């Protein structure tokens, strides 16, 4: 009987803090990228890392980035779950707009700073409820009807903007109700409240994924749905849940955004957010083919994108370049992840003899 060598030899393995081992860590490259971006920002803007206490809270570029990144972090977390199950959700931008519109409508267009058509909790819950319905819609189409995720979510993407516009009657609803502003613009213990919201969702998700069987099941479904099913995993329910969660995250993001800018714009809210989210998830190390995912990676990916946007602004580069740079980055990452491309690229650097020998 052969015994396995599992628990035995701690000394022969290299220390986990050895540089080589660190670099191989999944989060290594995302973290390095983020640090590089921060360095670039500091180089061009010496006051970048400066944080001071002003008006009862922390103040500085870093705080700003964190505040603006919170919605993207939320959407990226939701997107991570969907992508892990081999799916995709391109309707999150529309869901963000819908949630913002619902909240604004529930608060009402009154110009008074203290008057709201419905109590604030109702407005928040209403918006989140509608966002949940959006996610449920997507989930049913994918998990029960069996549509391809990109087509299924395309439908909400097309119709969703219209729905948001309908709710806001085609206007940009300005919100005057002050308690609403706390979510996206308020501070708690000196730090932006939105940070706590994103942090809370991250914490809940992290616990759910590591302290329950969710993480294991989702990864199993993403890597090999057939084997997971034979093992008794309820794939259909999981996939549905992933889309619902993604919808809710988009809803929270919508609340944060509209709270921050004090308005709900059915047309522009969440515009192109799905692309940013997919990019963040990819940068964070989760493969688009599903399976293993990294929540921390997605968070770092979202931060990278936000820092990148900030860097572009501070460099005085026109906003259109932002789009180009983002696209190029996504592209390069995909290329590097593609085995065919690596094979082709490898052929180019290998010696001619070796090139001939390969089939």
């Amino acid at each position, binding site marked *: *009987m*052969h*015994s*396995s*060598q*599992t*628990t035995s030899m701690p000394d022969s393995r290299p220390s986990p803090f050895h540089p080589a081992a660190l670099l191989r860590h999944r989060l290594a490259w995302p973290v390095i990228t983020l640090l590089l971006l921060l360095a670039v920002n500091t180089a061009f803007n010496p006051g970048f890392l400066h944080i001071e206490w002003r008006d009862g809270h922390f103040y500085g570029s870093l705080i700003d980035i964190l505040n603006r990144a919170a919605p993207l972090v939320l959407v990226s977390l939701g997107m991570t779950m969907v992508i892990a199950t081999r799916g995709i959700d391109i309707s999150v931008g529309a869901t963000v707009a819908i949630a913002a519109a619902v909240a604004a409508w529930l608060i009402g267009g009154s110009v008074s700073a203290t008057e709201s058509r419905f109590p604030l909790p109702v407005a928040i819950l209403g918006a989140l409820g509608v966002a949940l319905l959006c996610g449920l819609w997507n989930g049913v189409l994918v998990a029960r009807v069996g549509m391809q995720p990109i087509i299924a979510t395309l439908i909400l993407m097309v119709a969703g903007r219209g729905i948001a516009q309908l709710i806001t009657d085609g206007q940009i609803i300005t919100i005057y109700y002050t308690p609403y502003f706390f979510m996206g613009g308020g501070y708690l213990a000196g730090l932006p409240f939105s940070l706590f919201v994103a942090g809370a969702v991250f914490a809940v998700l992290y616990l759910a994924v590591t*302290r*329950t*069987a*969710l993480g*294991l*099941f989702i*990864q*199993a479904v993403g*890597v*090999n749905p*057939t*084997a*997971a*099913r*034979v*093992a*008794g*995993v*309820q794939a259909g329910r999981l996939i549905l849940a992933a889309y619902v969660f993604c919808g809710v995250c988009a809803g929270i993001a919508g609340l944060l955004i509209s709270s921050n800018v004090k308005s709900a714009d059915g047309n522009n809210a969440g515009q192109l957010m799905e692309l940013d989210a997919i990019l963040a998830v990819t940068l964070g190390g989760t493969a688009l083919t599903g*399976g*293993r995912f990294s929540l921390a990676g997605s968070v770092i990916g979202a931060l990278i994108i936000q820092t990148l946007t900030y860097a572009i602004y501070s460099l005085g580069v026109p906003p259109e370049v932002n789009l180009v740079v983002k696209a190029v980055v996504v592209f390069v990452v995909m290329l590097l992840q593609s085995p065919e491309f690596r094979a082709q690229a490898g052929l180019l650097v290998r010696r001619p003899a070796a090139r001939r020998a390969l089939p």
Partner: protein
Amino acid sequence: MDPILQAPATAATAAAAAPAPVLELAGIRKQFAGVPVLQDVQLRLYPGEIHALMGQNGAGKSTLIKVLTGVLKASGGEMRLAGQPVWPDSPLAAQRLGISTVYQEVNLCPNLSVAENIFAGRYPRHGLAQGWRIDGARMQQRAHELVARIGLDIDVTCLLSDYPVAVQQLVAIARALSIDARVLILDEPTSSLDDDEVRKLFEVLRRLRAEGLSIVFVSHFLNQVYAVSDRITVLRNGTWVGEWLAADLGPQALIAAMLGRELAAQATHAPAPQDAAASQAPALLQAEGLGQAGQLQPLDLQIRPGEVVGLAGLLGAGRTELARLLFGLEQPDRGMLRIDGRAVAFANPMDAIRQGLALCPEERKTDGIVAELSVRENIALALQARMGVGRFLSRPEQAALAERYVQLLGIKTASIETPIGLLSGGNQQKAILARWLATEPRLLILDEPTRGIDVAAKQEIMDQILRLARSGMAVLFISSEMSEVVRVAHRIVVLRDRRKVGELPAGSSEDAIYALIADHEHA
């Protein structure tokens, strides 16, 4: 008398006396990463004959076919077509040589018309041979002639998907013929056909044979092989066992040739004693007239706690289909299933797992391992699935579970965190077995659990199973290794061609099983 057993092979015996073989393979060798898959295999095909290629799973049939059709390149040996040495290096090259294949899964485009499928990639064109305008009328006419040649009278402008699988298969044959084939290879052509359709197909084959075409017929249905073939070549474990005229090789001898008579190696443990108490216990599982159209004929089955029931049969007999029905992966459309006397209907595996069933599947790569996850996660998966999302096996608990089974089954892995995809096939199999043992099932269905495992490990696994049976777990043991089945089973259920043909008690010999499969009366 089976109506399919009709035209004898006499017509072809004359052809056997004809001079040169149209296709000759000699000394074929093939290795995959140093592991020999084919060793010194030969095949001779004469004009105007139907030649059956037979062997169990892993015998090397599909590898040989792949070599013949240019999908794989042999590591050694030679191939002659009408006396000329050839080496097709791609399916296209094989086609150009006149070797045409019809695969088990109809490999055509369902969204195109019949005519377009027949001429895919070689459309008749207007004007120049290299022109790009398809001559639709001419294509349809030629397609119509081709399908007529095999006795099919259909509208060739309809989409392929409009027709049932049987017709699609005939279209595939028409396509194969359209390239002036000299050799036609049919790989399991009758798997999805009913008796009527099989009969029609065989008429077509006989007609083609009369025209001088050579046909290689790969199938595991004994009746069909005897109905239509002139010669039979048997492979086993990658080696050539022999070539016979079908008339000279009886079914029992054929089975023996395919399965071999390996004596049970190192039988250091005595066969499982019949647990007297178990045979009186009420049945744990009862299948009454359980069947699924096209997959399994209705059958009855009983399994008691502590019983090891062997399920014997050739490849394609329906054993895996039965396992899937019992486990809820497929739903029966006839009959009933009872657990502890209560009628149940499993909509999915989870229902079966909750009743205490477990299935260790045959195809570990597609149905078993979750390749990127670690050994620990794979072992814990089924147990965790049963416990649900809320009650969680913490990581140390998972690790302890995994360690226990790694020790118990001797799984060779660098660590329990190693991705299971990196383990060797045999160790993966052990890990999947561990996954199901961890759920402590009342009935464990094992589908080919010892495939790809070395002899010593096989022994360990079988002993482990016997131990579990003695402690009250029921086992449904599916294996192609008759010796194993005979050694451990308290009862042997025999399947053939998707129906149950009988049951044998413990202590029956392998001969008895072969006889039952060969449909002979045996004392």
